[in-house]
């Protein structure tokens, strides 16, 4: 009895391996990869939803190249060790393009594999500049501006709009925050009217930041540029307020999140953050949001519009190229403009989206307001 059970489970295990080998040519498959479980799931799930909405839309109108579109969704938990396995799995499934991945690290780990198999990748959220600028990944495109664009906007805003000169640059030691902070630091150093009085990494998840706040105060800074996400930012601004220190706080897209205002409460008032241009009034974006609310009965989450635009761009490129051939798709992506939730966009030779940029926002009366 036991032996039979053992053999059965072995057969089952082996058969599981074989799943995913068969290729179906009746449909066009698009891969969607990102974190769908774990801590960062809230960054990955909206992309899946966006892709589903776009694909449903296209399929209702006859699909692309006369075939139905099918999504293959895979979870990479934002781990660079897992991402290559996910990439090989998607390739095995026969996808012709990828929407994703979400985190820069995982994206980069997977990109080489896609490149080897000539598969175009459009990420809605991987902002690490070298992904496009190094020129190593001609198959990579993104519908979000790279970090340096954000940093230069923040620095310009602090120095020239706010007129601050002594800047403390803080970051959370993680890829996104530290990368941004390093760009901000070098831009300030290149400018003539500002100096970096402090450059420090803070420990994410720590219980208390008063020591580093003391240090900022002691350095005589009149503004803080913070690179990182909202949980640490709200602890920072709360403790700054509690100490009664008056200092401008400028941060990034990771902080331009309503949770930040909710958590930091009154301490969030007056905080500046850069974020993608507000295109939510764009008719396509309005419709996308309506579809989302209708289907999931909640507001869209992080990178939803970027992911929506990425899926639109990929499908349009396939349609324009009239083929699923790699060369044809990439050249279609760079040569045509396409109307998306982010406005009318195209891609430059590096793969960055033309027409996608950042603006500054400020918390006023409990909401983020764009500063024109």
């Amino acid at each position: 009895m036991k032996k039979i059970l053992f053999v059965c489970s072995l057969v089952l295990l082996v058969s599981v391996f074989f799943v995913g080998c068969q290729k179906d040519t009746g449909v066009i498959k698009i891969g969607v990869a990102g974190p769908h479980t774990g801590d960062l799931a809230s960054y990955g799930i909206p992309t899946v939803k966006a892709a589903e909405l776009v694909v449903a839309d296209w399929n209702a109108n006859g699909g692309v190249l006369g075939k139905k579109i099918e999504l293959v969704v895979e979870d990479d938990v934002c781990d660079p060790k897992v991402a290559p396995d996910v990439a090989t799995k998607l390739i095995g499934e026969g996808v012709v393009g990828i929407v994703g991945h979400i985190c820069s690290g995982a994206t980069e780990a997977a990109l080489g594999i896609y490149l080897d198999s000539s598969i175009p990748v459009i990420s809605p959220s991987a902002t690490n500049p070298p992904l496009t600028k190094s020129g190593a990944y001609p198959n990579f495109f993104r519908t979000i501006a790279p970090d340096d664009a954000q940093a230069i906007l923040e620095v310009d805003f602090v120095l020239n709009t706010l007129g601050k000169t002594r800047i403390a640059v803080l970051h959370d030691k993680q890829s996104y925050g530290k990368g941004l902070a390093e760009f901000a630091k070098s831009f300030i150093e290149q400018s003539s009217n500002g100096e970096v009085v402090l450059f420090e990494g803070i420990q994410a998840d720590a219980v208390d930041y008063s020591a580093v706040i003391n240090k900022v105060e002691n350095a005589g800074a009149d503004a803080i540029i913070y690179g990182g996400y909202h949980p640490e930012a709200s602890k920072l601004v709360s403790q700054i307020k509690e100490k009664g220190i008056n200092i401008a706080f400028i941060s990034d897209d990771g902080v331009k999140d309503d949770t930040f205002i909710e958590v930091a409460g009154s301490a969030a008032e007056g905080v500046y953050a850069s974020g993608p241009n507000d295109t939510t009034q764009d008719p396509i974006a309005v419709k996308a949001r309506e579809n989302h609310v209708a289907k999931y009965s909640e507001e869209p989450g992080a990178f939803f519009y970027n992911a929506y635009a990425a899926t639109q761009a990929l499908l349009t490129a396939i349609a324009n190229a009239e083929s699923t051939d790699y060369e044809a798709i990439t050249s279609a992506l760079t040569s045509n403009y396409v109307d998306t939730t982010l406005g009318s966009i195209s891609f430059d030779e590096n793969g960055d989206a033309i027409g996608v940029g950042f603006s500054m926002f400020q918390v006023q009366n409990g909401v983020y307001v764009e500063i024109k």
Partner: protein
Amino acid sequence: MKPLNKDLFNMKRLKVSLAMAFWLSVVTFPIMVIKINTINDTVIWRWGNLALIVILGLFGSYIWNYALDRMKERKGESNRLKETLSGLYQRLRSNPKVKKPVLAAVVLVIAAFPFITSMYSTSILTTALIYVVLGLGLNIIIGLGGLLHLGYAAFFAVGAYTYALLYQYFQIDFWIALPLGGLFAFLFGLLVGIPVLRLRGDYLAIVTLAFGEILRIILNNWGPVTGGPDGISRIPRPSFFGIDLKLQGSINLTYYIMVLMVVITIIVVRRLEDSRIGRALEAMKEDEVAAEAMGIDIMKSKLTAFALGSMWAGFAGVVMAAKTTKVTPDSFGLMESVIVLCIVVLGGMGSIPGILLGAFIFKIVMEYFRVFAMYRMLIFGAVLVIMMVFKPDGLIPKIRRKYTVEKEGA
């Protein structure tokens, strides 16, 4: 002692389970039932969850207590599964007619695996094999040496960064980096081991944890050299005598490298266990004072186990870097050490087939567990607790190798 009950139904047990269900539902009430929506300041009462807890608590605790009673009863009796398996194994070994074809079939399946399955399966299996090597390496430290180690991922990182950095700065090839990765991890093991191995048990655990974190933080902060939190990218996959293999080829090659490495690791671990050094380690684990009085150098033995175990993490790290083509400090955090530790203990400490099984369950079953998505870690946590309570020796407990003599009168 009260007589234990073999019967499935038992009034006393039912009463205990009812009480447990009651207490569980009381204690978990706030978190299970009340959900506060802080955005629009509303309270959601989820009474369904209360019913769920009562039912789960009742059945769960009944089965739990039943299993506990059964376990106590069976204590002293031998493990049936273990005996069946070892009996099967012995028969396989001793019968050359069966042994040869079975062995040949196994070798054939392993060798042909990349060609009969997909690239993805090969890739996942390779990852599992990397964790097998990690598990076997950590087993040298914990299982043989009895040293509680919570910073093993640091040595994995040493291997991975050895290749990444050597390639980035000196364009060193994978095949040269592979032994170097092991060597550096070995040396790092000695370096860390000398100050910390004087400490015992839990103190050792916390200090190894500290060293692991220190290394990770340095890799994270030393941007100009290590690439900081972004790590190092575009590390080449292994080449085969300079021939470019393309993606499929290099994935298969990595797989074969790992198969070979697992085989070598198993041979080394088995020989080590079955040697003067292995005996010394075992004696040390049983009784340090007595072992020392028998002429065993405790410090040297501990260092041997520690550095040798670390070396395998180094090898595995080099292959991991080559496989993923990217290394970042976050891949080598405390959680990674905990996962390898769980593989070793879950599979069965000291047992090579156990660790193989542990790593496979962990990597492959978890891979397909994605159906359960968000419940994955919850289930994993519960499984750890249940395993430790009901099978503390792991899935396939170690069958200790005994030296015996066959002499007259023996």
